[in-house]
């Protein structure tokens, strides 16, 4: 996160872009809970898909935590994103078992097919690829989990063909919906 990304524009002006009603309800709910910052950020990310600058400014104002502290927490944990992601988040497991079962080759297949690399989103906004530490499905290595508005699904024993098939199925579905 570069400094200018954080402070180039006064957040108050842009705050109108976001609807804070749902977040407000949650903030009220956890108001008295000690150590609630991570929980709030997790909920905010659930609502907006990522942590927009305006939302962080809003949380800061509401909770009294400085923006610096909030950014400190948000950038420490890999779960939090400061940029929007695609409709389908591919979480490709890079755990030990997946590593020895060829997860790197799977990553190459995904990157070549979607023309993105780890952490990036496709131009059409359909896919984002994230390498993750371990999904805990080691016996089905290599594994990936795809998260979208419907929920999350885990795919195991991946091969090149299987991955390409999964991607094309999602593309078809997205095309139909569009």
């Amino acid at each position: 996160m570069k400094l200018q990304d954080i402070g180039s524009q006064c957040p108050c002006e842009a705050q109108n872009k976001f609807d804070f009603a749902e977040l407000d309800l949650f903030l009220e709910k956890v108001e008295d809970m000690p150590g609630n910052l991570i929980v709030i950020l997790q909920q905010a990310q659930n609502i907006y898909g990522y942590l927009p600058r305006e939302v962080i400014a809003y949380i800061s104002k509401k909770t009294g935590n400085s923006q610096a502290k909030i950014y400190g927490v948000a950038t420490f944990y890999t779960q939090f994103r400061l940029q929007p992601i695609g409709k389908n988040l591919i979480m490709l497991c890079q755990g030990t078992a997946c590593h020895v079962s060829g997860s790197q080759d799977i990553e190459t297949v995904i990157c070549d097919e979607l023309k993105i690399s780890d952490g990036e989103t496709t131009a059409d906004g359909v896919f984002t690829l994230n390498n993750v530490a371990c999904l805990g499905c080691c016996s089905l290595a290599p594994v990936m989990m795809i998260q979208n508005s419907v929920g999350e699904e885990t795919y195991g024993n991946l091969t090149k063909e299987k991955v390409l098939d999964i991607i094309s199925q999602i593309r078809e579905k997205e095309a139909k919906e569009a």
Partner: protein
Amino acid sequence: MKIIIGQGSCGIASGAKKTEAEFKRLLKEKKLDAAVTIAGCIGSCYLEPIVDIINDDGSASRYVHMTADKVEAVVNKHIIGKIPVTKYLISEAGSAFLTKQTRIALKNCGEINPEDINDYITAGGYQALKKALFEMNGDAICREIEKAGLRGRGGGGFPTGKKWVQVRSQQEPVKYVVCNGDEGDPGAFMDRSVMEGDPHKMLEGMIIAGIATGAQVGYIYVRAEYPLAVHRLQIAIAQAEESGYLGENILDSGFSFSIRINLGAGAFVCGEGSALTASIEGLRGMPRVKPPRTVEQGLFGKPTVLNNVETFAHVSYIITHGAEGYRKIGIEKSPGTKAFALTGNVNNTGLIEVPMGTTLRTVIFEIGGGVKNGKGFKAVQIGGPSGGCLTEKHLDMSLDFDSLSKAGAMIGSGGLVVMDEDTCMVGIAKYFMNFTEHESCGKCVPCREGTHVMNGILDDIVNGRGDMGQIDMLMELADTITNTALCGLGKTAASPVVSTINEFKEEYIAHVVDKYCPNGSCKGLKRVEIIEELCKGCAKCQVVCPVNAITGKRKEPYKIDWAKCIKCGLCLDSCNFSAIVEK
């Protein structure tokens, strides 16, 4: 008749949901009377989806690899015709995977419905809690756990009873019980399995810890990557509260205990105690200097019992069977059982639980069914990024806390990644160092800078830029980091590198001196070779080579000078006889 469909994350990923839907559809269509229910993961993940059919006489048939397309045959023959479909049933070898184990923490996993508290109670659940509440007091519980010799299953192996006694002796009115479900160790998933398959057992252990230490609030810190575990824990907590096992005035005993769930946000270092409590407090998860220890000043500065999921899952067994009963299993200094996640290049992957002191050979070759594809055994990585590798000569060593640390490894959380003869050990060391560098929180210099430099050196080595001095440098850095880092993550960060250098030094030498990866897996060290028998001596490759690395006489096999070769691959494409290969 009852149909039980295994639905851990692994079962669902193998298609268990579709199997369940198909069973329900067919039962409805054919108007059959059979209950469909779910269970957690039984551990034989390589056989998923697994379906158990409990016949009316109480006998059970276990079907494996039960994908949706096989359901109709089973419904027609077994449910209607009462004759099991033999070809889909579990084989003898498959059953042996389970019969060779001794299960405490995983006992109910795959047997009971984790979303129904009554299943757990029928299986003897919450009896230990009743005993702890009405027949024992805090001192007696602590004594029993101490006598049982229970040691933390999360890695360090610290005596649990001692920890509880220390928290009990603190004169603070507010204390906490924290369950570490932040199973970040890549290659381990026993905690996930307990949370998904038998969540009440863990809750029961936490409540008993509360009685023992005088704490009234428990926190479960669980990884956000385990959505199913979180879901089942939420259900379990709600049901336990409703049934009076959790909440105000438990079973009219006057004791109150509540449990909250906190989702981890993806930081491996949060498995360390003080980092974990910082994370629950909503801060950056960074370890702090100790003392004060967590038992004195833990969560919100209060005395805190911090144990992992598997440890809590042992508590109810100890209370029910007594310390003596528990000590019958395992060995003197490491009593009880340990769950291991058996993965990598092994035939039967999955989750197993064996008495402490079982040999590695039994685990890999008898239970695990040996190395995949008939290949040779090379090593097993135990304890993830904090552990080390064990080789052929360690196969008959006993698996317990002390023997493993003597061998330069550690039990860690119990991940066992089996590696066959084709695995590059330098690559594995690089993989772990990359992981640790990425997960280092950055607070202390030895870990932050040390892991970065070590990873850089390993990067040089696997890309052919290394020299012998760098191997010594790795050992020196490893020594410094191990002795000076702030927390467990840093102190053990170098273990995979040290243990692979000790056991497989010749592989490191091949990488730095010969610039060659004996296993052909380091992409940066791939060599282009001309197969003499296939080469016709046409000189096409010599013409395309931009650095004149290929020489020879026409109509005789050509040769490649690896010192000059820049691995551009042009010669590979130019050859009409497939005589040039990359190795």
